[in-house]
């Protein structure tokens, strides 16, 4: 049964599994050539469109409002996180998402303010990529997605499934649903603007922005999913420092 389940999860996640000679923990990137082409496309898109739009957005929109747009979009994602936590049998996660949603809709004026965090109830986002991880799916091969950027096979599958995991999209009338979508895009553009320096430094100043993006995404994602074990920490005696 377990074998069958794991097989199903693997099939659902569409993951490529590295061969036995692949060093554990190292990023598996068999599609590097294609990924690099997508990366160049993403960079061109950012330079021509996203970056200027983001700079314009933060120049025109006051910071407080940009932050509120971010909170609003994030709050609409809470029910989706709750559904995923439910599928992961994480009761505390479900409770946190629902509590945050209710507090922010009411005390946070429809979600424009993160009132829940003021009470110490901090965000705990989840997504279907994480659900697949909890179910036992490996991350699969690294992929850089058009427009969306760094990901892996498991998380990319998760993104597709998450188009359907938000209960709000079934209960809200289409006009309200569209407001959510617009807020989400605006929040992403706002983030690109607020963190312009750090994103620019990765995309345009690093010697190999593809490799940096791949490493940063994978490390951060593994951290989010609690996959960074103490065993993986680098020890002080791992390197010969003679002469430095």
């Amino acid at each position, binding site marked *: 049964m377990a074998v069958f389940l794991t097989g199903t999860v693997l099939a659902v996640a569409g993951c490529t599994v590295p061969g036995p000679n692949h060093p554990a923990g190292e990023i598996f990137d068999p599609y590097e050539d294609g990924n690099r082409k997508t990366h160049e496309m993403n960079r061109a898109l950012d330079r021509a469109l996203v970056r200027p739009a983001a700079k314009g957005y933060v120049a025109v929109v006051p910071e407080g409002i940009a932050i509120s747009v971010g909170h609003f979009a994030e709050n609409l994602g809470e029910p989706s996180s709750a559904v995923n936590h439910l599928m992961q049998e994480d009761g505390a996660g479900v409770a946190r998402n629902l509590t945050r949603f209710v507090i922010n809709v009411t005390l946070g004026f429809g979600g424009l303010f993160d009132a829940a965090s003021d009470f110490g109830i901090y965000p705990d986002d989840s997504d279907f990529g994480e659900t697949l991880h909890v179910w036992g799916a490996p991350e699969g091969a690294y992929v850089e997605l058009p427009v969306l950027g760094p990901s892996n096979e498991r998380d990319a599958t998760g993104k597709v499934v998450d188009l359907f995991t938000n209960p709000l999209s079934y209960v809200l009338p289409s006009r309200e649903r569209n407001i959510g979508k617009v807020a989400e895009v605006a929040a992403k553009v706002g983030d690109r603007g607020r963190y312009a320096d*750090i994103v620019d*430094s990765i995309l345009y100043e690093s*010697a190999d922005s593809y490799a940096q993006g791949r490493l940063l995404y994978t490390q951060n994602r593994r951290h989010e999913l609690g996959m960074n074990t*103490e065993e993986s920490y680098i*020890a002080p005696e791992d390197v010969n*420092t003679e002469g430095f």
Partner: protein
Amino acid sequence: MYHFSRRNLIATAGAALTALALPVPAFALNNAQAKGLVDNLVGEINNVIDSGKTEAAMYGDFERIFRKYADLPYIAAYAMGVDARRASGGQKKAFTDAFTGYISRKYGKRFREFIGGRLEVQGVKEVKSFFQVTTIAHLRGEAPFEVDFHVSDRTGKNLFFNMYIEGINMLLTEREEIGAMLDRRKGNIDAMIADLRKAG
């Protein structure tokens, strides 16, 4: 959540000192020292952030902080990786020097974004042969996130040799970057060092 305070540190250090008369495990004192190091480090970073100095002046301050608290020869050696085997003594020294300026500028820029925010030391834990000191960064309009410092007394002094920002490991990230800089120069170490002096 456990909040670190100076009084706590003094109490811990005091207890450890009293216990010195007994055969006490060595880490009792080191624990407090590792935490003390990061507490001082975080205090200095917070002071620079709050100083309202110009960008250039801040980078100077961050470089001074790095030189005081970081195990720079270790970080530089790790970043150079296997290429260090073919580097001369002079190249290694020049690399460490250039690399110090580079990470001070690069990470100084990131710390500058903490303006209006703060780092809070949470706790310390012994891992493998070193100490992991956990801090939480509170930034405006953002969920708090974890910044960890790995501290070792490899050199006889407590210094941090790695830093994790939300799981992103400075040593691995810089090894990747230095490797890419070397590739761009077709493996020429001197050319890479010259590039490094302008980077970050």
